[in-house]
């Protein structure tokens, strides 16, 4: 089956991104396809590569990034939610005249339409809220 996930929780504050990750990994174990993982609301913070957890804790953004890289999965961050919360890629950073950008590898900024599209294309859309 084709699945998409929506993640709304900030990492390190809510469990939702951990749950989403465990669920996503199990989906692949069972041979399902993940069409897209969409980060909305405070979920956009999952894409912040500047987070520094203590060394004995999981680095959530790099965990998503390697999972996506190894399995060729699209991680999409809602651009409007991300701009409000200061998660930027190079082009948005330049567009808004900021001096840096902080999006983790393998995440892309795009519109909320990508969440709707995920709902249309996938057999199941599973939301991990906060």
């Amino acid at each position, binding site marked *: 089956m084709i699945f998409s996930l929506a993640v709304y929780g900030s990492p390190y504050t809510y*469990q*939702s991104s951990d*749950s989403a990750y*465990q669920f996503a990994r199990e989906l692949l174990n*069972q041979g*399902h396809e993940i069409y897209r993982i969409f980060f909305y609301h405070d979920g956009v913070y999952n894409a912040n590569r500047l987070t520094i957890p203590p060394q004995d804790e999981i680095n959530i953004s790099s965990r998503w990034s390697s999972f996506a890289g190894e399995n060729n999965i699209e991680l999409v961050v809602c651009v409007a939610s991300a701009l409000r919360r200061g998660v930027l890629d190079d082009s948005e950073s330049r567009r808004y005249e900021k001096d840096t950008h902080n999006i983790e590898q393998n995440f892309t900024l795009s519109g909320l339409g990508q969440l709707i599209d995920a709902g249309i294309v996938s057999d199941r859309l599973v*939301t*991990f809220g906060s």
Partner: protein
Amino acid sequence: MILHTVNKSPYADQTLLSCLRAASEKDTLLLIEDGVYGALKGGEYSALVESAAPRILVLAPDLEARGLLDKLSTTIATVDYAGFVELTVTHDKVVSWF
């Protein structure tokens, strides 16, 4: 047939009650994250959860993480992540309550 997930403790807010109000008999309700507190025996919500119309399940790793395996209501079954995924396949859609 809907799989509902609830991730909030009934001792903290009304999410579980809202879900139960909207869920049908043929649906399944999976308690995850802090939702697992709803499955404890001898608590204020035990009778409500044990007698609920939809089938109620608990995500075992979240229960275990919280040290609650010995407090689980005897009438409620657990699933692991593999079971969670299977439930999403066997139900038509997933509705998340959080």
